[in-house]
């Protein structure tokens, strides 16, 4: 137990948590934008997975940043596909989302096999690149806190910094820019923006594209930093955890950050615990983030229900 505590408060653990949080946070921000526009994006998982594979394959032939952009782009394209089916053809958005998830699960394995010449499990024989860590070791010259700063801040992925900036940028967009007002209005009561001449469906379509793009970016981080290379189903439910994190974060960007950090921390624990508790089965430990998600969501909706007092048809 003491060992566990010591691990958790170490700077190495902090770095691990930032690493595990980053893809989750990017996907959560994506989920947040779609959700606020009134179009629930259940395809985050699939978009992230496709983002992983696209980034890995492109990185074999191109510089890392092109690969990252390709990951982002692939997610955005899937967002556009979703918008087309759900908004233009009026298909049910949840079903469209699941269709994308299913196609992504199968399609990535197929594409992987094509790219590797037959390997259906991992991209181990592809020489893919990684996102370079941001080296801040020059901070070490600051007297006193220098070394601590370096151990906490140096070595994170570029995308971790991007994600942190995006929390602020999305907050600014949603609450300080006119388009954010449109987006929230469209999500809450579409008749009002429609009557004000705002193109409701265009707003939703853009939200889905951005949402998919952010999920794809999360995928790039996962496959080019957290792990280097692709493995089938490597997102392992992170897209769904992100959906939960949106609600848990009270549909606010800062809340999304906190919720993603919470889940990231538990994933981090699942990473360090097998080393500490050799006899606990690794599978059980890997379940922790999911159990926490369920508990957190149950707690959250229980509180929401209590606040919303059941009224009609029930005995008072």
């Amino acid at each position: 137990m003491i060992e566990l505590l010591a691990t958790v408060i170490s700077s190495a653990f902090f770095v691990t948590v930032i690493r595990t949080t980053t893809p989750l946070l990017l996907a959560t921000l994506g989920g947040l934008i779609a959700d606020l526009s009134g179009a629930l994006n259940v395809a985050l998982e699939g978009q992230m997975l496709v983002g992983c594979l696209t980034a890995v394959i492109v990185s074999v032939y191109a510089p890392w940043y092109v690969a990252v952009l390709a990951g982002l782009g692939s997610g955005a394209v899937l967002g556009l596909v979703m918008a087309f089916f759900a908004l233009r053809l009026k298909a049910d958005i949840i079903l469209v989302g699941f269709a994308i998830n299913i196609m992504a699960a199968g399609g990535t394995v197929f594409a992987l096999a094509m790219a590797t010449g037959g390997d259906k499990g991992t991209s181990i024989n592809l020489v893919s690149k990684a996102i370079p860590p941001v080296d801040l070791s020059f901070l070490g010259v600051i007297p006193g806190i220098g070394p601590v700063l370096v151990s906490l801040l140096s070595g994170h992925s570029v995308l971790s910094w991007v994600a942190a900036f995006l929390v602020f940028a999305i907050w600014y967009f949603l609450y300080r820019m006119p388009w954010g007002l449109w987006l929230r209005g469209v999500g809450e009561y579409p008749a009002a923006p429609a009557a004000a001449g705002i193109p409701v469906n265009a707003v939703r379509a853009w939200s889905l594209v951005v949402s998919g793009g952010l999920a794809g970016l999360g995928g790039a981080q996962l496959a080019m930093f957290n792990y280097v290379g692709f493995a089938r189903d490597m997102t392992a439910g992170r897209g769904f955890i992100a959906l939960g994190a949106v609600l848990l974060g009270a549909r606010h960007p800062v809340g999304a950050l906190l919720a993603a950090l919470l889940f990231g921390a538990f994933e981090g624990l699942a990473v360090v615990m097998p080393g500490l508790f050799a006899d606990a089965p690794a599978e059980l430990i890997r379940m922790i983030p999911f159990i926490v998600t369920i508990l957190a969501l149950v707690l959250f909706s229980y509180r929401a229900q209590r606040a919303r007092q059941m009224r009609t048809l029930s005995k008072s």
Partner: protein
Amino acid sequence: MAPLLQAISIGKTYPGGVVANDGVNLSVSAGEVHAVVGENGAGKSTLMKILFGIERPDAGTLLLDGKPVSFTNPREAIEAGIGMVFQHFSLVPSFSVYENVVLGAEPRNGIGFDREKAIAEVRALSEKFRLHVDPLPAVGSLPVGQQQRVEILKALYRDARILILDEPTAVLAPQEVEELFVAVRALVAQGRTVIFIAHKLPEVLEISDRITVMRAGKTVGEVGSSEVTEQSLATMMVGRDVALRVDRAVTAGELACEIKALWVRSDAGQPLVQDLNLHVHAGEIVGLVGVEGNGQAALLDAISGAQPIAQGVAYLNGTSLGPLSTLERRAIGVANIPEDRIAQGLAGGASVAENLVATKLADRRYVRLGLLDLKAIKSNAIALIERYSVRVGGPAQAVSTLSGGNMQKIVVARELSEQPKLLLVSQPTRGVDLGATQFIWKSLTDARDAGAAVLLSSADLSELLALSDRLVVFYRGRLVAAFLNSAALTPETLGSYMLGLATQTEDEMKVALR
């Protein structure tokens, strides 16, 4: 002078075959208040939606300043200087007043939303047009009268020259109507033009300069307000003479509903009804008088089961209602015509037939062995549509596509198809036309004569005075006066009690609280 806005032989048939407009003509001059009147389903809202670019006409032309125009969406109509306030508001509840006003046309500073400027502009507008409303609170927390001002400000902020108000007074209390008229006059004085739809003819005659009358999708004619009387206008609208008169109850029967020391509290714990004692007898209508929010609605909610009774008891024929669920209360004879037909009275997406049996799903006639008897449900719907002369395409039409008055008829038909013992009624004729008002009033008095005890709340004093056998006045959750209805009782007398300027003594009230 050439008319500012002209619609010539407009035709519109909805998918499903309802002919809503058929050769409609409208001609509005600059700087006038032009009223459009007609029965429910006459096609007034449809015509307005065409003027505002929400619906496309199948036939006809629109002329603005003498030039032909056609709007494919509201944005184009807004740009041409037309603004519209809908029968059902389109505001984002969690947004503040100023956010709602500027939504879609926000002032900017660089890439950001200039909140300071938005607030200042909204303040200036509400000053200029005498539409007082605080720009800061969330719209969802405001009373309807204020929400409506926000809607009007929204149109004015976009510089509407022509403002369409679709039944603006239907949701307002009498003093709010007066305030709205002050604003409308201020608008016209500053050169704006107003198109105004309403059902209450005295209001129409008071505010408008010219009136276009519609009936069953066609224009019947256009008249100057000074050339007509209420009676002649009513005849034009309905196509026959209408008289709004009801007979008083012959005799009051047994005590049906007894309310003792009743308290109702809001979710936040504030008392809405305080220590109320009231008896309602079979075969009488008791009118609940009061400015909205003084406890009448809370009393009806507590008795129907929509809100818990905090303290005290209410009996119906000796059964205490408190411990019963809404459905159990219905089973012993409580019927409810709620204030908000869309949110509380009907399921919008469901069909007319389904809505008409929605409260009777325990009834063997419609549900057998847990399965719906679709045939019985349909024939029930056909019979009720016939009996209540509802204007619909058929029993399968979705309720949300009915006109407001026809929606109300569906609620009334459902609640009165079975003779109730205790009938709760709130705003029965809000947004309902003359012919239907007459019909609904008749239905209520028929139910009364067949032995129902009726509690009636309405923002329309003339309705209360017309229907009630006794009236009680609410002020801040308490009864402050009670009257036996008579020709001598005037709205002015009631008004002074409603505003808390006068209070009766216990003894004075006792006479009418039998």
